[in-house]
């Protein structure tokens, strides 16, 4: 398979879902079964992705394939010469891996939805939306430039808006869609500013060109500080899309969407786009930016984890867990554990999609009951779902033999190493803490849902195992949550091809003095420049490698212990009921309430930002109507005072004379009218006086 062929294949993968979207949307009304077209398309895309993955990783493992085309030609721009704005696609290991994940999960969700969404009024429309989502996501993955990234970034926002608000008759659903879009836009503003900085500095959007210019010592506004700022601003996009603190509030609400959608976009793909963005721009991140990213990641890992501890909605728990896991990834990137972070992205995609689909299966079985306190004992009724859910729970808790163990441990290892190299132990500390909490709340969820006695017997009676089209995706994902696909050694991910050959930490392009010490290149600067575009292994410095190796065993043991502890506590609380949970909650009531009420983020944002904006807008509208208009219209108050003296004035005002100059003019006119008394002798007196005045002026 030649490179052009691969490009064409990539383009096909990109545009097939769009075709699916258009066809399904336009003929959705007429042809009942048009959704099958969309499903066929996505299967085709998946096959293409597999072929691409295979080809790329087998034959072009160290070659990046780029194809670009000029989208907009700006002509002969003064000072810059001929300028074009290019768009193009980049096929490298990261993108093919990502595309594989995206198309796979998308396909599984499509299949899962066939039964899950059956009978919905807008059945075909739903599949159309899935199509446009897949298209947008694929675009993000394949882009080789920042502009296209932004374009598809926004399109993903749109499709998520459409999908979250799919059941738009429900106010909560359309609210959630709106919230998701707007909160995302907040992050996008930062990203846009970052893009503006990049473009004004480099006059290109293409990553590789930007990187090589940075490596050549050309910075935004000629200062390294602004390079840091650029990095942080771009990362803002990721904060929004990946629902990182403090913009995480939209994701739990987004659970209003159909559950398969949650699995697709709010677990596996769209939210991962933020992480993917950071992965893409990783080379230009300075130590300051990385530190910022790490802190945000840490907070995002921690806060939602605490919230997830107490939630009762099955999907909410998963949502907060998603944020928390994404926080892990972001933190991992922040501490320089690039490979592990991306690895976690992939593994998490599978098991989190599995969890969501599993919960979908449960919800489907329970007739759209989502409260876990009303479930229980479903293990017997839904064995497949239970089994797959259990595997996923183990994976997310980081229990050995699962994929989650491999990737999560990598991140913890990275933060451990980071702590040891820089002294910032906080990341490692929080990482481990969250690992324990994760284990706890996942098993709390599992136990309450599947174990014990059924709490709602009526619903329980009707519960049943899901049909094949729903169970199959669960099985596939469960299989993919096993370690074997990634590495032969369940305790060391780096022995697998994925980490040793496919994912490689890119060469940083930031200046040496704005990197962490351990990241400083030991190669001469000019060599570094040449290596920018090459996909060669870079492992920062010798000391980092050592620290990482040193961290492996301690972090592994620690995380295992903590995860085990978390599971143990969960079992003792909910399965064996050793501790009265309600009593415990009572005894730490403030903390419990804080967690249960999601740290009051929604309330605070609602009051401060939404309320503030609305208040401001109302104030301005009032201002506009009364003050601005009033000022331009002349002194309305003066006029009103005058109107008391002249009854006629009111008539005229009513007559439509509420007008600009008219107020003042009318007033002046009124003065002039006073002279026109109708008495000719008065006129003559006035003439005499004006003559006197004229003579005085001109004497």
């Amino acid at each position, binding site marked *: 398979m030649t490179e052009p062929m691969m490009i064409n294949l990539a383009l096909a993968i990109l545009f097939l879902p769009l075709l699916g979207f258009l066809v399904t949307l336009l003929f959705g009304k007429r042809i009942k079964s048009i959704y099958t077209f969309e499903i066929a398309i996505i299967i085709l895309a998946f096959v293409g992705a597999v072929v691409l993955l295979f080809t790329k990783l087998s034959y072009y493992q160290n070659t990046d394939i780029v194809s670009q085309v000029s989208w907009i030609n700006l002509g002969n721009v003064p000072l810059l010469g001929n300028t074009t704005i290019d768009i193009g696609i980049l096929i490298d290991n990261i993108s093919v891996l990502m595309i594989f994940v995206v198309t796979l999960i998308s396909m599984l969700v499509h299949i899962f939805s066939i039964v899950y969404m059956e009978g919905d009024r807008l059945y075909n429309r739903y599949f159309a939306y899935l199509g446009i989502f897949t298209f947008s996501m694929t675009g993000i993955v394949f882009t080789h430039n920042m502009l296209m990234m932004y374009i598809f970034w926004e399109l993903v926002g749109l499709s998520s808006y459409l999908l979250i608000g799919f059941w738009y008759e429900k106010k909560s659903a359309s609210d959630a869609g709106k919230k998701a879009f707007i909160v995302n836009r907040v992050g996008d503003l930062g990203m846009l500013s970052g893009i503006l900085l990049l473009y004004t500095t480099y006059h290109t959007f293409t990553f590789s060109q930007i990187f090589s210019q940075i490596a050549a010592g050309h910075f935004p506004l000629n200062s390294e500080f602004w390079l840091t700022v650029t990095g942080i601003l771009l990362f803002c996009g990721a904060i929004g899309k990946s629902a990182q603190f403090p913009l995480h509030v939209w994701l739990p609400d987004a659970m209003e969407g159909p559950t398969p959608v949650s699995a697709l976009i709010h677990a596996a793909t769209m939210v991962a786009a933020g992480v993917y963005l950071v992965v893409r721009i990783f080379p230009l991140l300075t130590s300051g930016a990385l530190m910022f990213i790490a802190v945000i990641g840490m907070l995002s890992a921690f806060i939602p984890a605490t919230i997830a501890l107490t939630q009762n909605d099955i999907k909410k728990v998963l949502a907060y867990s998603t944020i928390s896991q994404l926080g892990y990834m972001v933190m991992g990137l922040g501490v320089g554990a690039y490979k592990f972070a991306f690895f976690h992205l992939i593994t998490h995609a599978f098991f989190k999609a599995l969890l969501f689909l599993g919960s979908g299966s449960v919800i489907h079985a329970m007739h759209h009951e989502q409260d876990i306190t009303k479930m229980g004992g479903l293990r017997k009724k839904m064995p497949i779902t239970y089994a797959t859910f259990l595997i996923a729970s183990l994976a997310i808790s980081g229990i050995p033999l699962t994929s989650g163990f491999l990737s999560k441990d990598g991140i913890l290892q990275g933060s451990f190493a980071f702590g040891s190299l820089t002294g910032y132990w906080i990341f490692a500390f929080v990482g481990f803490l969250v690992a324990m909490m994760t284990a706890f709340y996942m098993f709390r969820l599992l136990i309450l849902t599947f174990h014990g006695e059924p709490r709602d017997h009526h619903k329980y009676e009707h519960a049943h195992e899901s049909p094949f089209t729903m169970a199959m995706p669960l099985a596939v994902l469960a299989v993919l949550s096993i370690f074997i696909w990634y590495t032969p050694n369940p305790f060391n991910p780096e022995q697998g091809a994925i980490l040793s050959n496919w994912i490689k930490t890119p060469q940083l392009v930031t200046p040496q003095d704005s990197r962490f010490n351990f990241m400083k290149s030991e190669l001469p600067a000019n060599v570094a420049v040449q290596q920018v575009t090459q996909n060669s292994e870079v492992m920062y410095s010798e000391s980092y490698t050592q620290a990482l190796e040193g961290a492996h065993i301690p972090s592994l043991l620690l995380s295992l212990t903590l995860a085990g502890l978390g599971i143990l506590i969960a079992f003792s609380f909910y399965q064996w009921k050793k501790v009265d949970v309600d009593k415990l909650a009572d005894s730490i009531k403030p903390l419990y309430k804080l967690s249960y009420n999601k740290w009051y983020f929604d309330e605070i944002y609602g009051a401060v930002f939404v309320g503030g904006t609305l208040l401001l807008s109302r104030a301005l509208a009032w201002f506009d109507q009364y003050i601005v208009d009033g000022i331009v219209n002349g002194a309305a108050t003066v006029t009103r005072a005058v109107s008391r003296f002249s009854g006629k004035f009111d008539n005229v005002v009513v007559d439509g004379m509420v007008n600009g100059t008219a107020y003042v003019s009318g007033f002046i*006119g*009124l003065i002039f009218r006073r002279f026109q008394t109708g008495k000719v002798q008065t006129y003559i007196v006035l003439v005499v006086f004006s*003559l006197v005045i004229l*003579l005085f002026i001109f004497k």
Partner: protein
Amino acid sequence: MNTISLNYLVDSLKLIKPEIALSITLVLIVLVDLIMNKDKKFLPYVFVAGLLVTVYLLIEQFSTSAFAFTTAPNLGMVIIDPFGNFFKLLIAFATIIVIMFSVLSNEIKEGLDRQGEYYALMSGMILGMFLMASSADLILIYVSLELVSLSSYVLAGFNKNHVRNSEASLKYVIYGGISSGIMLFGISILYGLTGSTNLYEINSLIQASQVHGLTFIVASVLIFVGMGFKISAAPFHFWTPDVYEGSPIPITAYLSIASKAAGFALLIRFIKITFIQSVDPNGFWHLLNVIDWKTFFIIISILTMTLGNFAALWQNNMKRLLAYSSIAHAGYLLLGLTVLSNEGIMAIIIYFVVYGIMNLGAFLVVMLIANKLGSEEIDDYDGLGSKAPFLSVSLAIFLVSLTGLPPTAGFIGKLYIFMALVDAKMIAVAVIALLNTVVSLYYYIRVLKHIFLNDPQKETQVLSTSVASVVFLVVLITPVLLFGIYFTPLVDLAKSSISLMGF
């Protein structure tokens, strides 16, 4: 002892052929009135015929420049020059149109038995105006002014049984009497200062010797009172709204155009001939340093237009509104004089043509509407747009032109005024004038609002318009629109009319 030279008279009479024709017309009208005791519908046509002859004679001598009734070289009572001829032509045409008005007017028809007097007075008035436009002697100025005034006092009160007609004429006569009295007093002082009543002579006398400032200023200002009264410039405008409202519409129209034109012709001639020192190649006048005419006219014109526009905002009577609007237009016209340049005069002339057409048109429509509705109140115009679409659209065009919006002739008139101002670097004045235009839009558009936007209060019945009035309106609308987009002939006419005798 002086000897009387017959040649002196004959030469002079040759130059005042239009005036002679007018006098003959006057006599003819009186005679026809006496002979045709019952049927007087020929009278207006006799008058028009006489006027056509006059027009012919005027055109014949249009570019002549000469003194008539000379007593010494380069002095004369009467001046025949293109400038004067232009105004005479304008007045003659306005008169013809007003006669047509009168034929159509219900108000004039009421006094059918006094038609002869009506036209006789009118012909006396036009004769006075002709002489106003061409006299260079203060005595003649005064007498011709009085001739115009006396006729117009009576005409303003023509329908003597109407309360407002007689009131208008009383106010007019009192106001006019005192104005001309004050003017006469000023003339007497000027005479005392210079020993002459001839403007050219006065000019050369002032150039030759120092004249005492203050008295001279007093005299000039007092003389200006009489002219300011005629052109209704503030603060001598007070009669205008009352008289315009009270008079029959044709007379109002006539006063607002012909009488004003004559007044302007007189004013310009008086200022230019009396006070000129030299004219520079760019056409700017250098006046004798006697009185700061520029500032004087700036004050007067801004006051006039501001007052006219702002007071017009409040009017509910269409005639009164047009009266104030004509005051405002006098202000714009005076702007042309403030520039004190030939360019300014040209602007005034252009403006006058345009103003004449559109103002006559507006009054004509108002009259036709009044004929039908029996009302001039703007409130009664509600819904006229559907009842009488042609009249309404015509009025709209005239009012838009009065506002000065392109592509109507009104815009061209304003354009030239403002060009003159900008060229003279009088930007602040131009800004004030332009803002005035914006104010004026409001009251003009208010009329249109009533016509088109308001729903009729009474039941709708379509008002028919006679063929004669339609033709007549079309005749007036055509130049308003035509000059708006192609004004070369207009400017050419003005250009050939700016030369005053002697300068």
